């Protein structure tokens, strides 16, 4: 991600703002309002009888999606520091605001733990209740596969892991943010060195914690099934989400006038190239997992995909079309559109592509999470159902809180890292 151009050019655009950015307090309030409204609407779903699980699972989709975005931002910030990148300095600042959201995401994750502890243990994760009846009539408690995995899959270990991974993300985000913001004030190069060091060990630990999160929160929903590539699949969604949000935020700031004279075509081109690369990476990981399971054809693995293709009576269910939709809409459409240079550099074209990717990343998470909701025959509840409403409200609700956290942080510091050693390189970055 870096440019080792010749020595820094000695000129700087006049637009470099030394003053703090205008405080978007009104926007922050609006975002929080939307967020709380979305969450309240989702919670309203609890009033529908027998709907508690659907609401809880939708809530999980909302929290996991925005957590994925935040993890992706965290990873990109650390990759930026590790590669001593130049062009992405301004983008990094947006990500630094974004990762302030981890504490609120943890706060929003806790209701799921509380519901599992105090309410029905299997409200989201079927293994949370030993009396949960599996397809075939026996209970989780009598499932030999569960017994082997019970060391991890019990509410106590699960809660500790969940809180611990969030705690790590909160801590490392705070550390990275603090050093970066401190540099704005004193322009000391030691902060860059400190972030470089934090990132070196941080990236390893973040890889492990995001894998733990993906395994516990998503993969264990269907706990008979395991896939070693699952952490990488989750990582690809994290980065794609973060890049798309980052791009949209940058364009929004540009249109507001904040980034006029700072953001240029070349920045958009570079972000677009990364979006393109990670679209291919997602397809790669998803395809490898599917191909290997398809090819070996072992029932203990194929059932995960079969659930998402066929009902117990052999008829095709709606998830089959969702799966196909992911191939075309989550991979092929953005991949082909981003092949074009023009699409990458034209704001009016790349913004819808980024929004589209965000939508399909949600769809990808829905495909992985929501089929845990079963009907009376053990088939997944159909995709097109009332559940979709709670998913949409939960994603918007958590997103509102996330945006509020971003805006609050945005108002508290400089618009761009004005004293970053690579700031001139970033602003004069062009073809």
């Amino acid at each position, binding site marked *: 991600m870096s440019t080792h151009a010749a020595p820094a050019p000695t000129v700087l655009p006049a637009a470099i703002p030394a003053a703090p950015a205008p405080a978007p307090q009104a926007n922050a309030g609006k975002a929080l309002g939307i967020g709380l409204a979305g969450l309240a609407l989702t919670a309203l779903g609890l009033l529908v009888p027998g709907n508690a699980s659907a609401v809880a699972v939708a809530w999980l989709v909302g929290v996991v999606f925005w957590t994925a975005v935040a993890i992706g931002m965290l990873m990109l910030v650390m990759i930026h520091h590790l590669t001593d990148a130049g062009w992405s300095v301004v983008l990094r600042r947006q990500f630094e605001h974004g990762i302030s959201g981890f504490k609120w995401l943890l706060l929003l994750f806790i209701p799921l733990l509380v519901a599992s502890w105090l309410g029905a243990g299997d409200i989201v994760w079927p293994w949370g209740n030993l009396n949960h009846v599996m397809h075939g009539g026996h209970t989780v408690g009598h499932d030999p596969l569960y017994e082997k995995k019970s060391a991890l899959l019990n509410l106590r270990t699960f809660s500790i892991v969940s809180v611990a991974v969030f705690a790590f993300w909160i801590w490392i985000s705070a550390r990275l943010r603090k050093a970066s913001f401190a540099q704005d004030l004193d322009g000391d190069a030691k902060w860059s060195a400190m972030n470089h060091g934090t990132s070196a060990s941080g990236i390893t630990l973040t890889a492990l914690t995001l894998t733990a999160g993906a395994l516990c929160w998503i993969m264990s929903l269907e706990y008979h099934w395991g896939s070693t590539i699952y952490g990488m699949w989750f990582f690809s969604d994290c980065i794609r989400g973060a890049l798309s949000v980052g791009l949209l935020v940058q364009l929004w700031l540009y249109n507001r006038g904040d980034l006029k004279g700072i953001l240029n075509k070349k920045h958009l081109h570079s972000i677009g190239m990364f979006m393109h690369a990670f679209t291919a990476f997602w397809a790669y990981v998803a395809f490898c997992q599917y*191909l290997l399971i*398809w090819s070996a*054809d072992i029932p203990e693995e194929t059932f995960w995909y079969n659930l998402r293709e066929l009902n117990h009576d052999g008829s095709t269910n709606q998830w089959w079309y969702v799966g196909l939709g992911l191939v075309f809409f989550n991979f092929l459409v953005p991949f082909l559109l981003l092949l074009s240079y023009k699409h990458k550099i034209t704001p009016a074209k790349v913004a819808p592509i980024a929004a589209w990717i965000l939508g399909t990343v949600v769809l990808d998470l829905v495909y992985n999470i929501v089929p845990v909701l079963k009907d009376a025959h053990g088939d997944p509840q159909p995709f097109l159902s009332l559940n979709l409403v709670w998913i949409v409200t939960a994603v918007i609700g958590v997103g509102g809180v996330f945006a509020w956290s971003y805006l609050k942080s945005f108002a508290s510091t400089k618009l761009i890292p004005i004293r970053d050693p690579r700031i001139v390189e970033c602003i004069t970055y062009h*073809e």
Partner: protein
Amino acid sequence: MAAQPYGLIATFESASGVYHAAETVRDAGFKHWDCITPFPVHGLDRAMGVKRSVVPRFALAGGVLGFSSAMGLAFFTGAVDYKIIVGGKPFFSPIPTTPIAVELGILCAAIGTVLGFFFMCGFPMHYHPVLKSDRIVPALDDKFLIVIEARDPKFNLAQTKALLEKIGGQDVKELEA
């Protein structure tokens, strides 16, 4: 009598020298002219007014051709020409064919890129007036040249020579065809 020269050739000492000179030549409205540099000078294409390369189209065509021909081959051999059940798998499925299609797509895209590059440059072109000049050795080492061709409608031996000298060109000479 001396034959019509190919054009005028001028030497520049630095990358920024040729860069600023190129901007002037471009603004003077010349069409048939060129910069000769030992390495790709960053931004010189814009200073010269050269358009973005169209080589990507050749690559895309190659990639599509390779990908679809592999899919077609697997379909024809597996599901049409000689149906044989292996491992209980369908006669044709895009899933196990994808690796082959991707590889063939990559191969053909690469070949398309190289052919497109050669085609757009007119390679192989082993004879060229610039190559005959003894200035090609420093030009592929550490010097920079600007060549303005005589066939350019704006070309005028005296005036163009004056222009090249004015913008810092050294040793401005006629280049024989």
